[in-house]
């Protein structure tokens, strides 16, 4: 790295040395341009702006859920090892038939304005969630929320569920809100006050930053008293901030993560998140209406190369599954794994030929007897991607290279993000690139595969009663084994039927400055790891 210093030093010397002189004298002997040691434990996080706002009923993106999880606490949460424990709830029990859950709230828990959190607030929050966009799918079987006493609340479900305690712990989205505070202001969620989470929002400057300060009423008060939450989305800028000490926690790029891990200047935490990268396609018309074509493409894509090229090898690869190996409902599927690249290409070519796409001049595939396509029509597809996502551009370029080998011509198309998903919903794209997150098997299959799922219209485009029924059964299964068996079937079905080419995942690479101690890799959008952290 020293070599680079000289290289750059020379190139900017002419213009900047005089000015840097005055800067240098001001910062003087102070080494490391960090924060000027504040009296309270304060850190700076660099995070994307909560672009969907702070209303848990509307905001589903991680950018919103991460700050929401800092402000709104849920009934349950996961500890460092991933085990489900009580958060605002001290304990819970279910009836033998699995259709009734009773939660007892912690005595001490209070909103940031000092008022205690009561069962009334929990009821209010769940009634609200059930009507809202984000949770209504996951809470579809919830029929009644009943206040037993100020600290006890009972949930009644139409069907038994073993995953209910997990559902009520969905970070940010299932947060408990103050009934009094929310009802008092029609524009409450612009700058929410009296919140239940470990921190409270004390300032919010759009396109600037937010400030979080500790909630004194939180049962286990966090050690970091103040968090400056700067809105930023430039991974290279984040790495620079971490290295120069002007930031403490930030997501960074994959190449920088590799470098910083080796350098040891900052800690780099990587979490195996269920954040699938997928190819969506229009199955209503050729070429992708044919399952054989979809499978051919699934064989033709070089999963490892893509992950190396676009994610520096992080993120994990899959040859059929969508779920991650840590998921209790995971059973390994290797439908598209072959011994070599040549074999994959050969299989893909054979499938294309079977589907009526024959090899023509210079290896290009053309239609011959494909219904809905004129004979001789070349296999050409334009694949759009969001222009503000560099890795997406990388994926489509690698796809272009991969499919060229089987005679399919891909034209990458950089697309305006403000129109992208709207046009995807309108069915404008034959094949397109996407990425989204899920917290686990239940969340994923409910929201991506169920006809009522919040992401179905943009991911799988499914509207299949039998799949809906399967998902409902899985969510209602009384035993983990029962649920696991159904999820296994669903995983097999999707690998075969719509190899959606979830061929990789994006794993957040979180860089953490050396002065932050005890911070563990985030499992989901929750802030529990931040609560346990301290500044040393």
């Amino acid at each position, binding site marked *: 790295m020293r070599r*680079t210093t000289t290289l750059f030093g020379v190139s900017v010397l002419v213009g900047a040395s005089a000015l840097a002189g005055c800067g240098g004298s001001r910062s003087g002997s102070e080494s490391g341009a960090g924060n000027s040691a504040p009296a309270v434990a304060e850190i700076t996080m660099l995070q994307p702006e909560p672009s969907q706002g702070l209303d848990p009923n509307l905001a589903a993106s991680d950018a919103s859920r991460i700050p929401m999880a800092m402000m709104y606490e849920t009934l349950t949460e996961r500890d460092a090892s991933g085990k489900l424990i009580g958060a605002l709830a001290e304990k819970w029990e279910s009836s033998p038939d699995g259709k009734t859950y009773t939660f007892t709230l912690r005595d001490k828990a209070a909103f940031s304005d000092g008022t205690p959190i009561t069962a009334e607030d929990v009821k209010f929050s769940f009634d609200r969630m059930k009507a809202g966009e984000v949770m209504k799918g996951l809470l579809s079987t919830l029929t009644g929320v009943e206040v037993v006493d100020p600290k006890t609340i009972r949930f009644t479900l139409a069907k038994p569920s073993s995953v209910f305690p997990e559902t009520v712990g969905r970070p940010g989205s299932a947060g408990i809100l103050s009934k009094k505070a929310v009802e008092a202001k029609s524009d409450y969620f612009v700058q929410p006050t009296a919140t239940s989470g470990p921190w409270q929002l004390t300032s919010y400057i759009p396109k600037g930053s937010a400030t979080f300060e500790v909630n004194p009423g939180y049962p286990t008060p966090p050690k970091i008293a103040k968090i400056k939450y700067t809105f930023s989305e430039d991974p290279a800028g984040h790495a620079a901030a971490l290295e120069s000490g002007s930031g403490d926690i930030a997501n960074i790029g994959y*190449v920088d993560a590799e470098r910083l891990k080796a350098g040891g200047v900052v800690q780099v935490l990587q979490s195996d998140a269920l954040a699938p990268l997928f190819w969506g396609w229009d199955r209503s018309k050729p070429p992708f209406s044919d399952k054989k074509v979809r499978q051919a493409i699934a064989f033709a894509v070089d999963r490892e190369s893509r992950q190396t090229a676009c994610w520096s090898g992080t993120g994990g690869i899959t040859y059929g599954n969508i779920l991650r190996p840590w998921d209790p409902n995971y059973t390994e599927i290797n439908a598209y794994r072959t011994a070599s690249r040549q074999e994959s290409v050969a299989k893909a070519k054979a499938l294309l030929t079977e589907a009526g796409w024959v090899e023509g001049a210079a290896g290009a595939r053309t239609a011959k007897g494909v219904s809905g396509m004129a004979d001789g029509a070349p296999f050409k597809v334009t694949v759009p991607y969001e222009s503000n996502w560099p890795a997406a551009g990388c994926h489509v370029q690698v796809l272009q290279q991969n499919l060229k080998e089987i005679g399919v011509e891909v034209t990458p198309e950089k697309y305006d993000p403000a129109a992208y998903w709207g046009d995807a919903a309108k069915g404008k794209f034959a094949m397109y690139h996407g990425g989204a997150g899920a917290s686990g098997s239940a969340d994923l299959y409910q929201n991506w595969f169920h006809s009522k799922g919040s992401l179905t219209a943009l991911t799988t485009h499914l509207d299949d009663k039998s799949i809906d029924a399967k998902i409902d059964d899985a969510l209602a299964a009384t035993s983990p084994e029962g649920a696991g068996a159904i999820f296994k079937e669903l995983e097999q079905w999707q690998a075969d039927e719509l190899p959606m080419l979830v061929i990789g995942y994006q794993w957040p690479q979180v860089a953490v400055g050396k002065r932050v101690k005890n911070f563990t890799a985030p499992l989901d959008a929750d802030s529990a790891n931040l609560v346990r952290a301290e500044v040393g």
Partner: protein
Amino acid sequence: MTAKTMVVTTAPKAAVRRRMPLRTAIGSGLGLLVVLTVAIGPWVIGKDPYAIDIANRFAGPSAEHWLGTDELGRDVASRIASGARATALIALGAVGIATAVAIPLGLLTGFLGGWVDLVVTRVVDLFLAIPSLLVAIGVVGVFGASVTTTVLALGLSYWPFYTRLIRSAVVGIRSRAYIDAARVLGASRWRVIRTEILTGLAPLVLLQTTVLLGFAVLDEAALGFLGLGVQPPQASWGSRLAESREFILAQPELALVAGVPIVVAVFAVNLLSDALRDRLDARRIS
């Protein structure tokens, strides 16, 4: 004998020219380098700028890859060379569009004056106040990212300012005494425009076109930085610089390799246009 007279006659000329030519020479040299890159660069390097080689990404310079490889293992030198063509095309096209709109409009408003001038000038001001970023996003949104779109986006953001410039130049020329004289002598409007104003404008247009070329190269880079540049895998200098920024901390040399051609090309254009300006100024004064 002839040699002697030569020395005598050329010496004073050389003295007058000597100060400028160093800058002009540097400008011409750098400009020639850029022109050569555009013209024969891809052919000299002889590598496919689109060939992905993932096992070989971020390789340093070697005999095989003169400037190393990029994040997808493509040959950087050939991407810079083929990017030079795209960038040159964009710059020339954008300036062409701006000039084609600005000259007629500037002539119209500057020569006719009156309410035509007032109305058109206000409309031009209106467009002048719209940020070019907004224009670019609209154009890219409607037509998709490509070289043609970038040409259009830049051309559309240059014409208002160029039109104003031409207009004030026309007003300046029109107010000169010899134009009045020509009109008094019975020359038609069209004749006056053709003979007096257009010839008077020519140096300015020549100069302004050169200056704008430099701007266009810079703005193409800025559009790339904002994700609005050409469509990958096509390379342009701006998109190359934008792509390399993602890896600026780990692979700073890639960003340097991408940035230096832009700086060199614009510097050359600036030096040459400055020399041109000096020469025109000198002619005007004499």
